[in-house]
């Protein structure tokens, strides 16, 4: 049985099931400005509904009031309609091939039993997280700030697997493919690549566990590539094939898609699009408010706590400053202990508003390299948003 046959059968199973149980939601058209719909997918809790086919689900912000994002609330983003919906671990194999002396076919059990397990806490963030805040607006998944999550990933380093496969001299790139398949032959299969040195840095890993549990199917069961500090586009889900290449990898998803202007912070002008573009790569620095809730009513004289998260690509967050007067004055927030250089760092600051009225909260993170957040930013694809966030709250 090949993969397409199997997926075909699974598709038939899904089609049979959907006639039996259909979750209906509000009519879909005419909703661009209406509040986010929530939706439940298998193994997931209620999440913000972007699309169903393929699934794109956003995490409600209140889940970020904890160090690790629960698996059931972790954001979901697929590219191709043909996503895997069934995996038989008796027959599933991770194939390592290409420019190696010893091609490998490893079961998930092999990975668990034959290699030293490693764990890392790391943020995964979609390249297009916060895309809906760019002005002028750009087409693409209209995420707010919830296409991000922080999890403990456990698995095997790609280095240890490549070492066993004995990479030949002259290797340039390593490509990673998953079980998802395109809906038409003309659509490029979703495959991403890293340089051989990056793939072998000992941190890039293949996770078989997420927060000490197996991965939800829509988050990449049974194996997912983890590329600490890099955008989620590289974190290939349902990873099935690793190919070592003696030349640079090239396909639609790296040559045409997921590219950013070559200038600082991936920024360009709508009226003067950048001519030079490069593949998106490491996270920039950003912070996100998680409290107060926009719906929350605050009262004058009543102490409250402003909270958020901040992260970067691995230098480490050194400072988060908060303003409660629209950027007029700033004060340092207290940082929670570091959980690892690729984890987000939570921050908090007490606040007692004195008067009734509207307050504009702002937060600005700085990392150990001295990089901080943007005042303004735009690019045609809506990637890498890290503008200093403004949250308007009412005290009454």
């Amino acid at each position, binding site marked *: *049985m090949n993969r397409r*046959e*199997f997926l075909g*059968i*699974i598709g*038939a*199973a*899904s089609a*049979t*099931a*959907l006639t*039996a*149980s*259909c*979750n*209906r*939601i509000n*009519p*879909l*058209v*005419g*909703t*661009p400005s209406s509040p986010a719909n929530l*939706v*439940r*997918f*298998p*193994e*997931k*809790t209620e999440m913000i*509904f*972007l*699309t*169903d086919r*393929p*699934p794109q689900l956003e995490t409600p912000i209140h889940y970020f009031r904890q160090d690790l994002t629960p698996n*059931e609330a972790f954001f979901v983003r697929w590219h191709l*309609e043909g*996503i895997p*919906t*069934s*995996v*038989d*671990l*008796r027959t599933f194999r991770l194939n390592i091939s290409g420019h190696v002396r010893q091609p490998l076919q490893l079961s998930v059990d092999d990975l668990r039993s034959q290699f030293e397990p490693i764990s890392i806490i790391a943020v995964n963030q979609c390249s297009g997280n916060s895309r*809906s805040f760019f002005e002028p*607006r750009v*087409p693409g*998944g*209209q995420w707010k700030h919830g296409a991000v999550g922080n999890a403990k990933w456990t698995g095997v380093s790609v280095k240890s697997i490549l070492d066993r496969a004995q990479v030949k001299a002259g290797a340039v790139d390593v490509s990673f493919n998953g079980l998802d398949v395109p*809906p*038409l032959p*003309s*659509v490029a299969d979703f495959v991403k690549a890293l340089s051989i040195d990056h793939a072998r840095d000992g941190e890039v890993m293949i996770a078989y566990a997420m927060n*000490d*549990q*197996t991965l939800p*199917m829509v988050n990449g069961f*049974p194996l997912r590539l983890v590329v600490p500090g890099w955008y989620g586009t590289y974190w290939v889900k349902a990873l099935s094939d690793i190919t070592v290449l003696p030349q640079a990898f090239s396909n*639609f998803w790296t040559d045409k898609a997921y590219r950013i202007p070559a200038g600082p912070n991936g920024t360009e002008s709508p009226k003067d699009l950048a001519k030079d573009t490069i593949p998106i790569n490491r996270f920039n620095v950003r912070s996100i408010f998680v409290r107060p809730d926009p719906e929350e009513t605050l009262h004058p004289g009543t102490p409250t706590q402003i909270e958020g998260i901040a992260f970067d690509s691995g230098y480490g967050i050194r400072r988060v400053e908060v303003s409660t007067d629209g950027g007029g004055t700033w004060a340092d927030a207290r940082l929670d202990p570091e959980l690892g250089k690729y984890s987000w760092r939570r921050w908090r600051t007490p606040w007692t508003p004195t008067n009734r009225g509207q307050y504009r909260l702002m937060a600005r993170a700085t990392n150990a390299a001295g990089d901080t957040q943007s005042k303004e930013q735009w690019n045609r694809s809506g990637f890498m948003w890290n503008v200093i966030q403004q949250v308007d709250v009412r005290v009454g």
Partner: protein
Amino acid sequence: MTPKIKSVVLLLGLAALLAGCGHSSNINKESERGNANEKMESTMDSKPDNLVHTIVLPHYEPVFPPGPGRDEFVTACVVCHSPRYITMQPRFSRTTWLSEVKKMKDVYGAHISDEQALKITDYLVSINGKPDSGQAPKGTYGE
């Protein structure tokens, strides 16, 4: 694939069984999540080895308002993706919608003629459009 395997897969897809995720240390945590999952079509093989993991994706009935180009849109676009790819977008100009349709045709290989592409663009503008700034007037295809 044998008919037997096929029927097993179908059964797995339809039975809403909840179980651990293949490793005994996870079973408690998985059961704690049971409430959140009880109505979802997620299944693990009920056999002790728990080696087949299957989900059934929910289906959402799309609703399309009537309008010129609706048939072309339903036929050509929804083959590959949910109509929510359109309805989640902000209102865009005709220029932007046309470039999106062209991208689907020229980059992703959607099976549509230039004429159909224009009709689809008309429909997208009619359900989720905004005034254009002047480029790409109605009825032209591309630059």
